[in-house]
């Protein structure tokens, strides 16, 4: 497999302008002759479908929820970064670029990140114009807050519901195009496979989740914006339906999967309370602006937090990282929390928790200021735990949150399958080995509003695409495979439920491919996952039929794919003999327990190529160059 990243030449500051100029254009009158499939209606897919529809393309957009507005982007809380420098505190496009490359621990592509930082400013303008009710200062100007990994205040927010408001903006733009007739929306429809004709992506096969109908859709290009795969861990902050099916099945059809083991563990989530637990809830990182993280100085201290005097508390982030303090990047904060819990200093029933304490801020700013900033988060915490964070510190613990890995894409966001583009969390492009807070929303919207409208046009204008419709034999062949798979899952009628497999897989992944990883554990996990997968295909019980709304069947397909992806993640983690960002290999750490990169041997993106069922995948490498930000050990001290 050849990886051509199509990075433009010349200075990074002009690269995007220059490549936009070099790209071929589709004549306005011809746009409606091209049909485009967009799978996903989150920030990435929604913004792409709306923008492409507006340009005049014939767009079909798909989501598995009952409305595009429910895509998982809706749940993002904290905010979105942009290099506006409205605070006059020294921000710039270059600084956002620098912070993102450094935050990603030098495993992202510089040119992509620079473009992202450039587009960030347009995103805010676009969203304001759509009516996104960003927080404002009394003078009427846009307000900002700080996020981890940055020393400037560049995060824009809409209370604790930034993702919701940005997504509603994109959703409304999308519905405007539905109204205009340029986008046809397919809700409750799940993509189950990709159709390739003459080497190019030309369509998808879907299942109507209400009627069970398997259907074919042909197009001139396919865009996947199907989100992240954090649910491979079962417990994560992702929505229950978030899954890897679209990207995994595209991977099996030839799309390289890059850096699958790069997952983000978010430091501030509500700890697990019991074995019925179905998901984990994030408490936004923005809380670290005003909350202080601590554990008791001594292990086994069971006193109530209010009974522990100041001098018997360890504010370990402030102690270890005096210059960033509670605002160190997520990977650093998560590992530090794990370390204190491993020392037996964790708090709460399970000992897997640390305090996030607002007492000082409430004293300093008053309760109402804290309520104004975080009221809805405090309420959510109270609803879930029954405890009041205004009077007692929150208990938090790290949880799986985001996947930096994803399908490999070039600078134009095209995968290794010509004609198939990948946007948003589903691709691997911009965050390297660790994503900074408030930059996933930025990436999704940059990809959808400001990149794909150009690069898709370039693809369509520079390729001769023969007429294709769903009567092509390739559609029939893929449809048969999909039907067979569904029938097979329904026919096993074994003894174990789908979710019991999912939980077991999640535990294997969390124990071996989570916050700390080592060679022995990873090798062992690979064997365990293979065994579990084998058992799944012989003993799973998927009730009901394929002819109607069957949530167990939907979930079975997703879990089957996770059972394959999990193995690839472990393989990737095992091959990467270094620690970087969220990938912490216990064998590779400094004396102080910080991640130790190996730039000489691992300064590349690992793009895995599918080689067949139960065959070892092939590793391809895209070397990464750092001409602008020079790799150094990240220091937040």
């Amino acid at each position, binding site marked *: 497999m050849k990886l051509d990243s199509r990075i433009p030449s010349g200075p990074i500051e002009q690269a995007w302008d220059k490549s936009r100029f070099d790209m071929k254009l589709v004549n306005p009158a011809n746009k409606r002759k091209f049909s485009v499939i967009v799978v996903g209606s989150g920030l990435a897919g929604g913004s792409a479908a*709306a923008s492409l529809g507006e340009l005049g393309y014939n767009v079909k957009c798909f989501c598995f929820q*009952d409305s595009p*507005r429910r895509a998982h982007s809706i749940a993002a809380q904290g905010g979105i970064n942009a290099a506006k420098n409205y605070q006059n505190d020294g921000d710039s496009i270059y600084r956002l670029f620098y912070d993102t490359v450094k935050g990603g621990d030098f495993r992202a592509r510089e040119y992509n990140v620079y473009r992202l930082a450039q587009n960030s400013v347009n995103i805010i303008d676009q969203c304001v114009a759509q009516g996104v009710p960003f927080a404002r200062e009394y003078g009427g100007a846009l307000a900002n807050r700080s996020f981890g990994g940055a020393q400037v205040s560049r995060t824009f927010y809409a209370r604790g519901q930034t993702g*919701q408001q940005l997504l509603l903006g994109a959703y409304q733009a999308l519905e405007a195009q*539905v109204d205009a007739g340029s986008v046809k929306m397919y809700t409750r429809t799940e993509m189950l496979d990709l159709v390739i004709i003459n080497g190019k992506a030309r369509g998808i096969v879907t299942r109507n989740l209400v009627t069970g109908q398997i259907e074919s859709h042909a197009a001139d290009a396919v865009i996947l914006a199907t989100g992240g795969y954090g649910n491979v861990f079962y417990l994560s902050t992702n929505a229950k339906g978030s899954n890897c099916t679209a990207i995994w099945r595209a991977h099996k059809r030839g799309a390289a999967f890059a850096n699958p083991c790069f997952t983000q563990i978010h430091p501030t989530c509500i700890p697990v309370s*019991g074995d019925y637990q*179905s998901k984990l809830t994030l408490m936004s990182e923005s809380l670290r602006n005003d909350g202080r993280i601590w554990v008791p100085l001594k292990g086994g201290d069971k006193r109530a937090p209010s009974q522990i005097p100041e001098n018997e508390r360890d504010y370990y982030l402030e102690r270890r990282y005096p210059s960033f303090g509670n605002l160190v990047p997520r990977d650093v904060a998560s590992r530090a929390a794990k370390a204190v819990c491993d020392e037996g200093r964790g708090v709460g029933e399970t000992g897997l928790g640390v305090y996030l304490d607002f007492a000082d801020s409430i004293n300093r700013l008053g309760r109402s200021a804290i309520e104004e900033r975080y009221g809805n988060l405090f309420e959510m915490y109270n609803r879930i735990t029954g405890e009041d964070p205004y009077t007692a510190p929150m208990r938090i613990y790290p949880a799986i949150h985001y996947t930096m890995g994803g399908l490999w894409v070039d600078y134009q966001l095209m995968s290794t399958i010509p004609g198939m583009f990948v946007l948003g969390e589903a691709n691997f492009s911009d965050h390297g080995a660790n994503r900074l807070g408030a930059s996933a929303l930025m990436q999704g919207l940059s990809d959808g509003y400001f990149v794909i409208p150009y690069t898709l046009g370039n693809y369509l204008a520079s390729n001769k695409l023969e007429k294709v419709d769903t009567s092509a034999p390739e559609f029939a062949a893929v449809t048969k495979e999909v039907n067979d798979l569904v029938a097979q899952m329904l026919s096993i009628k074994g003894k174990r439920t789908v979710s019991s497999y999912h939980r077991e897989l999640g535990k294997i992944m969390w124990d071996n491919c989570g916050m700390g990883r080592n060679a022995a554990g990873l090798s062992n996990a690979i064997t365990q996952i293979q065994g579990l997968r084998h058992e799944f295909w012989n003993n799973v019980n998927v009730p009901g039929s394929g002819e109607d*709304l069957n949530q*167990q069947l939907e979930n079975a397909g997703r879990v089957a794919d996770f059972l394959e992806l999990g193995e690839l993640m472990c393989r990737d983690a095992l091959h990467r003999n270094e620690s970087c960002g969220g990938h912490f290999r216990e064998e590779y750490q400094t004396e102080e327990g910080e991640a130790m990169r190996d730039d000489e041997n691992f300064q590349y993106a690992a793009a895995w190529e599918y080689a067949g069922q139960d065959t070892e995948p092939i590793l391809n490498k895209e070397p990464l160059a750092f001409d602008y930000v020079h790799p150094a050990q990240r220091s937040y001290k």
Partner: protein
Amino acid sequence: MKPASMNLTLHVWRQANAAAPGRMERYDAPNVSEDMSFLEMLDVVNEQLISDGKEPIAFEHDCREGICGSCGFMVNGVAHGPQKGTTICQLHMRHFKDGEELFLEPWRATAFPVLKDLVVDRAAFDRIIAAGGYVSVRTGSAPDGNAISVPKEAADIAMDAAACIGCGACVAACPNAAAALFTGAKISHLGTLPQGQAERSRRALRMVEQLSLEQFGSCTNIGECVAACPKQIPLEMIARMNRDHLKAAWTSRGEHRSGGE
């Protein structure tokens, strides 16, 4: 301290598909921990049903954080259950008592046909938004974000309105099955901001017209919607919608008289 546990009896609406008749069925939910969410309690019941060779109960959910608007059904006649300002996915079992009997039914409204068990079709809400619940702004054509200042009060009102999650509880709670709170929230959100002014009249006219096309009932200001709304969208949003609509109806009639469109 170990969390307390309880035994509950559930009566759940079971309906195979939109065309099939439905009926209530009884299930036991033993050893429910007070720390579970309502949906986690149903997960456990479903795992048992599957193991017993029965069909699990279909209900909608996704984020389980009270923000996506997927979840929602009636618990003892109350939309999203007894806790004020809380979606069913965020409702925790500590609000129930040992031995309680709970009746779970889907939203009931002509505009929301039942698809299966507790799952209904809410596509009408998307069509209401498509009828004008947006600001038309071409991608890439926006002025600088700070070019137009927005008073903090206006931004706050807009945000209060924009917090609607589109769950449909307001419709389910309304004796007329009206969707005035949902529609009023969007009209108020965009109508409060300077960016929403150009299309304000057209938006109000079209969205209100769509409401009746979708067979939602008429609002008679009963206020049950507000009591059921998990995001506590205030009743004043309906008043704002009515004002915008009335004003738009007047001006558009004027336009018709002068022959303009």
